[in-house]
């Protein structure tokens, strides 16, 4: 009987350890995750402008790789943002870069690719947890 005790204690510690790890696991970076869908900034915005519900079905919560012309690169409170221009002069695709990800010297007017998670559409389409795709 007593020979079971040690393996049971070890099992308990392992399970508790896994539980503790899962509970405290930080939000993973999307750097190594493959994009669920690739789209141009223009198309992404157009899809949302045409039908928000359908665009959400397609993009919301998914890892999206967006390509287009950089309209703006900004840094606010330690958060880097890359804005892509679209054919709509007022609306853009805004990507908020994950902490530790820089805008890699992107210049306005340059064509670039950013991969991030689509959080939806307000007056612009917004991606979070993003990184510049080299």
């Amino acid at each position: 009987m007593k020979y079971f005790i040690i393996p049971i204690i070890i099992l308990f510690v392992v399970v508790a350890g896994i539980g503790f790890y899962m509970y405290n696991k930080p939000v993973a970076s999307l750097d190594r995750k493959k994009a669920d869908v690739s789209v141009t900034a223009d198309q992404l915005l157009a899809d949302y402008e045409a039908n928000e519900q359908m665009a959400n079905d397609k993009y919301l919560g998914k890892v999206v790789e967006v390509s287009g012309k950089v309209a703006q690169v900004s840094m606010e409170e330690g958060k880097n943002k890359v804005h892509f221009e679209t054919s709509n002069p007022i609306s853009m695709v805004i990507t908020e870069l994950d902490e530790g990800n820089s805008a890699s010297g992107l210049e306005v007017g340059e064509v670039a690719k950013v991969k991030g998670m689509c959080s939806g559409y307000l007056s612009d389409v917004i991606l979070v947890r993003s990184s510049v795709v080299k």
Partner: protein
Amino acid sequence: MKNLIVIVVLLLSAQLAIGQKYFSKTGKISFYSDTPMEKIEATNGTASTVLDVTSGNLEWAVLIQGFKFEKALMQEHFNENYMESTTYPKAKFKGKIDNISSVNVKKDGTYNVNVSGQMEIHGVTKPVSATGVITVKGGNISANSKFSVTVADYGIVIPKVVAENIAKNVEIHVQADYQPMPSN
């Protein structure tokens, strides 16, 4: 001649009636839930807000999936179980600054304001009111406010298993640096 004067006066008053609008696409919203069991905190830096300093009309919109938590499990539960963010991707506020006339955007200073309006979270709309501060500096306006939201009011169901980990009332901080909206 009299008609011309009338037309000019009408045009001028129309100009005055059009409010001066300010906006931000980088509004920051953070919420805090503090219980003896756990402290939960999340921030979103991509909220959209528009303020009309003439009428006091104020609007905020934020994407739920833009809230960042430290722990993956927390972020997952928040989106999938509590906020059901695939069904309700946004939270919105539409209201006004009740005492906007006390804010002078041409004079640097801090102004205490009262805000009231309708808050929509998780598909449920409720009236809310809060106090805040508007700071005017060099033609720029920034605003911040702190208020509390009762989770259950918005149909958000917290399972009994984690009920002790999440506060019944969650504290929300809201902050924005506004820019004037370009007038057409």
